[in-house]
Structures are given as structure tokens and as C-alpha cells.
């Protein structure tokens, strides 16, 4: 019986390390996707949307992966705390940025971006 239990823990450790690593990789890829969006989108408001991909799913998947690979529950609790605070603060800071841009008088580009033109360089 102890051998069986040993096998179980070994199995779980292997699985969670592999799975956690895969989740971290996925999160890193999503961060890159968000960065591509920031570079491609035309103005600050649309760029905020792309950046929020990095904030939510990118950071979320990386932290989930790290939580799976956490060596003990103290680390796990810290990662969960980071996740909660990150979700609260990233939303607030996005809102503050958008609000500041609007207060400063920056008009958002509205309406469909014309196809074929690079990166939404729309002439009025």
C-alpha cells in the first residue's frame, strides 16, 4: 500500500509540473499576442483593449501555471493573493488611463477601420 501511495504522489507531481509549465507557456504566448495588438491598434483606447489581454489571460495563465507548480501551500496562498490584487488593480489602472485620456481631450476613433489600409490609418 505505501508503494501505491508513493506512485500516486509521484504521478501527480509529474502531471502538475508538466501541466503548469504548459499553462505558463500559454500565458507567455498570450502576452506576446497582447503586445502585437498594442503595436497594431490605432489609438490609446483600442490599445488599452489589447493590453487588457496581457493583463487578464496572459498574467492569469502564467500565475495559474505557477500555482500548479507551487512547492507548498504558503507559496500557493501568495500566488492567489497576487492574482486577486492584479485583477483588481489592472482594471482600475486601465480605467484611470482611459479616463485621463478623455479628460485631456483625446477623441477616440469611432467606426469601422477601413480594410486594406495598414493599421487603421483612416483618413476622415
Amino acid at each position, binding site marked *: 500500500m505505501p508503494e501505491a501511495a508513493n506512485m500516486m504522489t509521484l504521478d501527480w507531481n509529474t502531471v502538475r509540473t508538466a501541466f503548469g509549465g504548459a499553462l505558463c507557456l500559454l500565458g507567455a504566448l498570450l502576452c506576446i499576442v*497582447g503586445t502585437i495588438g498594442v503595436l497594431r491598434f490605432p489609438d490609446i483606447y483600442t490599445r488599452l483593449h*489589447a493590453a487588457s489581454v496581457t493583463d487578464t489571460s496572459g498574467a492569469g495563465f502564467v500565475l495559474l501555471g505557477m500555482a500548479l507548480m507551487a512547492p507548498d501551500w504558503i507559496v500557493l496562498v501568495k500566488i492567489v493573493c497576487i492574482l486577486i490584487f492584479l485583477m483588481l488593480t489592472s*482594471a482600475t489602472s486601465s480605467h484611470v488611463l482611459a479616463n485621463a485620456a478623455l479628460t485631456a481631450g483625446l477623441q477616440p476613433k469611432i467606426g469601422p477601420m477601413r480594410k486594406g489600409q495598414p493599421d487603421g490609418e483612416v483618413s476622415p
Partner: protein
Amino acid sequence: MYLVGILLAAAAFWMANSGHYKPLMLGFAAVSVVLTLILSLRFKIVDREGSPYARLLGFLAYVPWLAWEVLKANWVVIRACLRADLDISPALVKVRTTCKSDLAKVTFANSITLTPGTVTVEIQGDKMLVHGLYEANTVPESFISMDARCARAADPRGAAS
């Protein structure tokens, strides 16, 4: 009453973050918790929002739904980021909220901002200015269910009908 709530939360936070339980360390813990209480008294943040235990269950029920919405919205924005030709059509809409308390309004506005593709730009009274990546996804009707769930999760009981 609210002070006890903050005390419990601070003590639990310290316990979960340190992992040291020697008498000396526990003494430091007591000192830091008391300092935190004094600071929060001086900041005058010891009120209903300072220890929101009454709303905890509502929030716990709301979070999984929000996480799923965030994932769905993520997929839309990721596709928009990687598409060969940029087909976004940004839009600004006014959304009217049924949330009564400040906490519920903040929850609603932050939820909108947290889902990729929509950002709350401004809040005035019960109207919010929302900027969205796609015109079709950013109509006031698409926020009704989120608004109702926020009102149920964060408003005091009885305020939301």
C-alpha cells in the same frame, strides 16, 4: 464590529503569508496587526466597505461567472489582434446601471474594464461611458446581465429589486 473584521482579515493574511510560528515572530505579527488597525482608524476606512464580510458569498458566486466572461471576451480580442486585416470598429456607448451602492457600481465598472474589448471611460451618477472594440458587441443590451449580477452580488439586500 468592523474593527474586529479588519483584525481577523489582517491576522489571517499575516498567517498565510509568513509561515513562521515562533513566539518572537508571533509577537511581531501582533505588533504589525495593531499598527494596521491604528492606521486604518486614522484613515477612517473602518466602515462597511472596510470589512465586507456580508457580501463575501455574493462575490464568491459572481467571480466564476466573471472569469468565464473574461475568457470568452479574451478570445474575441486575441482574434482581432492577430487577424491579417484590422477589422475593428471602435464605439462609445452610454450604459445605464441599476446598481445602487458605490461598491456595486465600482464592481460593475471594473468588471466591464476587466473583460477585454470594453473599457469604462467615465462614471457619472448611474450612467457609464463605455468604449468598446467592436460596435456589434458594445450595445447597452449586452451589459444587462452583468449589471444584474453585480447588483445582486454587491448591493445591500433589499436595495436591488
